[in-house]
């Protein structure tokens, strides 16, 4: 995601990471763009994104419930944005470990909302927890926990 266009935007905002503004660039392309992920809100250490319901993203042939795969992608992307938001700048991160508990299936034709909170940030690692729901934050669809690493510019796989 550290493509030149985005870097120009980040520089234009003087390095500050504004999730609402930058989501237009971060969510419009690639896997996130294909899924149609949308920005919903953010706080000091959290970002909330939404995955709209779509017929070609369902988990069972003939069913109408979103598959679990796109929910992992939603949670992963919200996690990355919560890290940049807390850090106050955009820096590429790699997911190291991600755990998702599927508390219950989402409702038929329901969009899923995920809120990820970066509760601990060091120079190279970020710890994130979060949850997903399909309308009522008190009735969860999934919970998550993840660890992310900042990518060094010269790392072989960066």
């Amino acid at each position, binding site marked *: *995601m*550290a*493509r030149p266009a985005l870097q120009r935007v980040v520089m234009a905002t003087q390095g500050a990471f504004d999730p609402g503004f930058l989501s237009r660039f971060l969510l419009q*392309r*690639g*896997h*996130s763009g*294909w*899924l149609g992920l949308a920005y919903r809100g953010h706080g000091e250490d959290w970002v909330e994104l939404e995955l709209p319901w779509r*017929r*070609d*993203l*369902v*988990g*069972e*042939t003939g069913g109408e419930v*979103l*598959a*679990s*795969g*796109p929910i*992992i*992608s*939603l*949670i*992963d*992307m919200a996690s990355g944005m919560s890290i940049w938001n807390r850090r106050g700048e955009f820096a*590429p991160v*790699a*997911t*190291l*470990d*991600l*755990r*998702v*508990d*599927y508390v219950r*299936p989402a409702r038929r034709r329901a969009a899923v909302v995920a809120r990820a909170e970066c509760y601990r940030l060091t120079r190279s690692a970020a710890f994130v927890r979060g949850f997903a729901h399909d309308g009522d934050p008190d009735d969860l669809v999934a919970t998550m926990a993840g660890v992310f690493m900042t*990518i060094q510019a010269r790392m072989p*796989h*960066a």
Partner: protein
Amino acid sequence: MPDRSALTAYARSLGIEVEQAGDGAPILAIDFAENVEGRPGAFHGGATSGLLETAGYAALRAELDRLGREHRLKPINITVQFLSAGVEKRSYAQGRIARLGRRNANVEVEAWQDDRTRPIASAVMNVMMADPAD
């Protein structure tokens, strides 16, 4: 034998294909394309997870078919380890049943690109196996 029609709408839409279906767990594959891209030139962690999870279910379905068991599969959880970046190449995944119980199964899955001995990611999944009528 699992064919492409056995994959979920999501898996087909993402671009997952059955690479090899034999007696055991099928090998699934996906080509690199814009719709799986995260950082430029690399698979999005969510797309890699989707491949792993789909391969895990395919392994479980194959084993249940072999045993003549019919279940509705419901995800309990998944833990994914990302081992190295998935680059702009075709990626593969295959699951292995670690434990098959009456109501739940534990499935291990690995994803790789050129070299199967150097996986790009692995996952452990717990799956609930409900009665088809549930």
